[in-house]
């Protein structure tokens, strides 16, 4: 359907822009338009129960805005009712109520009269936009002392944990998975107990349509979930410095490719690990991973000082950050300090 500010003909579907939404109606003649409720001008609160199909003059319908006339495409032209039938359908519903902003609004009414179909392009477009939005959510969490006792829904993960001898490692892996189960529910509305998790031969976990990456360092975990490939790595800055000082310049030189211009060893290490984890194949060889020209976000968090992390992924532009504690997460978008 295309919309033009043309002179409408009887039986045409018409609309007018009121603020940020469109108000729809059926054109009957120069002095009559049939609409489902008055235009949403915001000057008065419209109680749905009081909204009915009614007639209006063009001035009442448009509120001074330009009336646009719908021009059906070929397929719509074949489906539309003849004008007399459209007007009869509209008149037959005068006085009818049952208005609902999402499910039975003025656009639904107009489309039903013209095409015999219950449809609202505005709501449909918003719903499609919401359901196809990029998602990349990062959950940071300090590991509580009782983490090792947490029961997970994933039997596959529980099996892996039973084989993990190191207690600190088992605690971290238990907790990052607990956060993952929460993250999947919060981000995608899915229940972890109904998901099937698998590991490839390189140790990379996956579960169908959802992508995720896990990381842990002394006392904290980071979990990234997304509807596209994602990788995350996390380090404690002081521990990392103690491990590699005073060889950081040498290590930077060893892992940096010719195209990379990074000057900080930890940030480059984190980026390379995040890309490696997003890919999930092969073994980690930092010198062989070229991050030049690729997007990754290196960041710190005011809420968890002393940590630095990097996250990469197809949906990086949509990255959102949360702090997970005591079984729930809150947004910490404004606490994130981006390093580059």
């Amino acid at each position, binding site marked *: 359907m295309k919309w033009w500010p043309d002179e409408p003909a009887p039986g045409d579907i018409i609309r007018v822009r*009121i*603020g*940020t*939404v469109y108000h729809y109606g059926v054109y009957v003649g120069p002095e009559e338009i049939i609409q489902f409720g008055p235009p*949403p001008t*915001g000057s008065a*609160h*419209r*109680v*749905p*129960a009081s*909204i009915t199909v009614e007639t209006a003059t063009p001035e009442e319908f448009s509120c001074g805005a330009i009336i646009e006339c719908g021009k059906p495409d070929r397929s719509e032209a074949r489906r539309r009712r003849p004008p007399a039938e459209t007007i009869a359908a509209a008149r037959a519903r005068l006085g009818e109520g049952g*208005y*609902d*902003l*999402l*499910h039975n609004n003025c656009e639904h009414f107009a489309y039903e009269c013209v095409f015999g179909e219950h449809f609202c392009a*505005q*709501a449909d477009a*918003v*719903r499609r*936009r*919401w*359901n196809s*939005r990029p998602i990349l959510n990062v959950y940071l969490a300090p590991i509580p002392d009782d983490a090792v006792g947490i029961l997970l829904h994933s039997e596959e993960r529980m099996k892996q944990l039973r084989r993990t001898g190191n207690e600190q490692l088992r605690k971290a892996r238990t907790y990052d998975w607990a956060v993952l189960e929460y993250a999947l529910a*919060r981000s995608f*509305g899915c229940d972890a107990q109904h998901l099937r998790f698998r590991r490839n031969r390189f140790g990379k976990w996956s579960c169908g349509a959802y992508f995720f990456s896990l990381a842990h360092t002394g006392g904290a975990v980071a979990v990234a979930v997304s509807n596209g490939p994602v990788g995350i790595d996390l380090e404690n800055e002081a521990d990392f410095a103690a491990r590699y000082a005073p060889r950081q310049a040498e290590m930077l030189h060893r892992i940096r490719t010719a195209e990379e211009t990074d000057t900080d060893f930890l940030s480059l290490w984190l980026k390379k690990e995040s890309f490696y984890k997003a890919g999930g194949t092969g073994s980690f060889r930092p010198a062989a991973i070229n991050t030049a020209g690729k997007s990754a976000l290196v960041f710190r968090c005011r809420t968890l000082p002393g940590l630095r992390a990097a996250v990469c992924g197809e949906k990086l532009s949509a990255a*959102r950050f949360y702090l997970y504690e005591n079984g*729930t*997460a*809150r*947004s*910490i*978008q*404004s606490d994130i300090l981006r390093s580059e």
Partner: protein
Amino acid sequence: MQLSRHEIMERLRDILLIADDNRADFIERCTEDADLSAELGLSSVGMLYLVIAIEETFDIRFENVGIGDFATVRDVIDYIEAKLS
């Protein structure tokens, strides 16, 4: 889906942040008393986006809803809570 009021608030915050990233500071700190239109600056299409996002997030269906039905965040949470229970 059984969610605590706190969890409903946090998920609603997610939606508000997606709708308007520029107000992250305010949205992360806003309480249930926040006015959707005056303080959060939601326009008509913003309200449409909000209610559709809520339907999809909480797997509920808004019924007999008009644009002016929700003045504050509390109004929205009350509605969601009632629907979920």
